[in-house]
């Protein structure tokens, strides 16, 4: 499928899915279960509203979600208490599959959700969205309900800038435009069709999630795109415009760390796919600089993109889901 054709057929706007009654009828006909996973770390200011809205609108009024789960990396504030008080199921990531060595990172929470949650579809939504709305869930789930061939739906957000003509730039944040899009353009031109490859909101079928590895840090979204694309092709993706997303702004230094982690994942993946051969050993220290009076000081950050294997290779998962022949699956 050509990129333009894909954009035409697999790019949606959340307003196309306003009829939630119809969506739920279709979901029930297919006997699908849908789980929402909200990964958290110190999100007490925003988590309450998020759980209240999803509970009321997508469980009580329209029963689209079968469970709402908060998976936490060890918050030191009241994130878990607030989420629980409004009816979410709350889990500490370290309590899920506790015999595994401990890893900390958003990707770890997303990966453990595959074991813990029961949905045939899992939708991931970040906890720091100030303008949270039910569309953040139903806009992502709908393409999976209505189109069986679609397996992975990414969110994108329109960011209108001042413009004077009918055409305006539409794209992602700084890391996307400066790092990811140039890399994809070089090596995976099909994936440039994904308008915001790093958005933290996506809905995925379990039979895809269980078969892909999960970097636990910054690289999880990039790795997903490369793995799903390599195995199922561009047609497995869709993307939904969720309008505006208001969230915390990150400093350029923080984006530098993010870019460093993503690059590690990207280079590892293209190495594994045989696209780039004979890679040298990569360093895991990012060096940034700060000025103090007339001196420039180097600040070192150790960023290691550790990775979890596909969930289907984990024994407990195989037992829980009666998977007798994981390699065949």
């Amino acid at each position, binding site marked *: 499928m050509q990129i333009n054709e894909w954009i035409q057929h697999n790019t949606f706007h959340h307003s196309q899915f306003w009829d939630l009654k119809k969506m739920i009828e279709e979901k029930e006909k297919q006997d699908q279960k849908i789980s929402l996973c909200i990964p958290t770390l110190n999100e007490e200011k925003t988590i309450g509203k998020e759980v*209240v809205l999803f509970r009321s609108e997508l469980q*009580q009024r329209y029963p689209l979600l079968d469970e709402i789960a908060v998976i936490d990396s060890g918050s030191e504030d009241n994130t878990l208490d607030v989420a629980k008080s409004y009816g979410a199921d709350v889990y500490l990531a370290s309590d899920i599959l506790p015999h595994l060595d401990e890893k900390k990172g958003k990707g770890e929470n997303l990966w453990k959700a595959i074991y813990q949650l029961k949905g045939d579809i899992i939708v991931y939504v970040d906890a720091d969205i100030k303008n949270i709305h039910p569309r953040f869930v139903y806009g992502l789930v709908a393409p999976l309900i209505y189109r069986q061939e679609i397996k992975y739906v990414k969110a994108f957000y329109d960011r209108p800038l001042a413009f004077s003509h009918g055409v305006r730039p539409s794209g992602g944040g700084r890391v996307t435009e400066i790092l990811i899009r140039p890399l994809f353009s070089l090596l995976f031109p099909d994936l440039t069709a994904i308008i915001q490859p790093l958005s933290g909101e996506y809905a995925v079928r379990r039979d895809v999630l269980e078969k892909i590895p999960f970097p636990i840090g910054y690289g999880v979204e990039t790795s997903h795109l490369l793995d799903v694309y390599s195995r199922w092709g561009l047609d497995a993706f869709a993307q939904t415009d969720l309008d505006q997303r*208001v969230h915390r702004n990150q400093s350029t230094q923080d984006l530098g760390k993010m870019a460093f982690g993503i690059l590690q994942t990207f280079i590892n993946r293209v190495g594994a796919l045989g696209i780039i051969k004979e890679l040298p050993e990569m360093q895991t220290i990012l060096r940034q600089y700060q000025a103090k009076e007339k001196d420039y000081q180097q600040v070192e950050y150790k960023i290691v993109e550790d990775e979890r294997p596909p969930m289907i290779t984990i024994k407990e998962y195989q037992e829980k889901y009666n998977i007798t022949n994981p390699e065949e699956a």
Partner: protein
Amino acid sequence: MDTVTDQSDFKAKILDKLPDYERTIRKLRELILANLVMIGEIPSPTFNEENRSQFLKRRFAEVGLQNCSTDEAGNVLGILPGSVGKRNILLVAHTDTVFSEKIDHTISVGPNEVVGPGVADNSLGLSVIASLPDILDRLGIQLKSNLVLMGAAQSLGRGNLEGLRFFLSNTEIPIHYGVCVEGAEIGRLSYSSVGMLRGEIVCMVPEEHDWTRMSYTNAIITLNEVISNIVSIPLPKRPITSIVLGSIRGGHSFNTIATTAALRFEVRSESEKIVREISERLEEIIAEVSAHSSIEVNMDVVAVRKPGGIKFSHPLCKTSREIMKSLDIETNIIPSISELSALIYKEIPSITIGMTNSEHLRQPNESIYIFPIYRGIAQLIGILTSIDEGFCDAD
């Protein structure tokens, strides 16, 4: 409701049920808060309420109200039909807020409170109205009367209750009772309206001003003279009367002489005659200050209310007080100049009540407490069922 039988009937049918209502409403917390967030995050300054009204109309339709519509004034209406339908109770909350669209309308929900611009005034009131059909359903209550639910547009400031006035003047539905729902404060009971005149006094250097005399001219100094005269107006203790100086603005910078200055004010009195007398005095002050200065001074009256209302002993008022007492809500009787005035003008027995406690009212960090809301809504249900059962009918 004078006889012992009436009183015991009222106790059995209304008061005894209130604790159960409160418990059940508590279980609907997410519904009420979700409506509050979704309504409150849509900016809705007076005269620009369309987006919020559109959401409310959709919500009315989703919960199965009949005749869901938006009228010419921008009011949103929906009817929950009663089993008999002989009388109509209007339940109204205003859709507009004092906050401009440019303000960040993000709302945050904590374990005990909700914070954001307009959450108390009046997103909570609207949320309660939007949630009411579900709440009544959960409580197993079907009223005999039709319930007309309304989000009223153009209420605040220069809006001057235009929306509700339009509805009451043009509707073909006879309204027998009115209940105005405000987010805050719980315990508020308004059953009468005070006389009111709301206006703006603007001082302005005219275009053809003689700039050679510039150093003698300043709109702020002139406005200051106007204000000095206003605060010198003697006010009677009875009937209770006050002049509220609400806001002033003028000038542009540190070192430029101000060419405009404006004062927004409100005169309130239990007596219509005194409001009229103060209005005449204001006109005199303006004429006097204008006469000995080269600055134009003008007064623009943006809203006027007549005093009136039901009596303290009216069964609607008495029943409401008993319901509040039964729920341990301390009653705070205050006259109103909001939606209630429009209902009183049409001689419809009406009250205004509040749903919870608030802080920082009309500031961007406006907040409301969650826990009292359940009691506030139980009070509303008690009042509605009392009206429905005829306990509020005057002889």
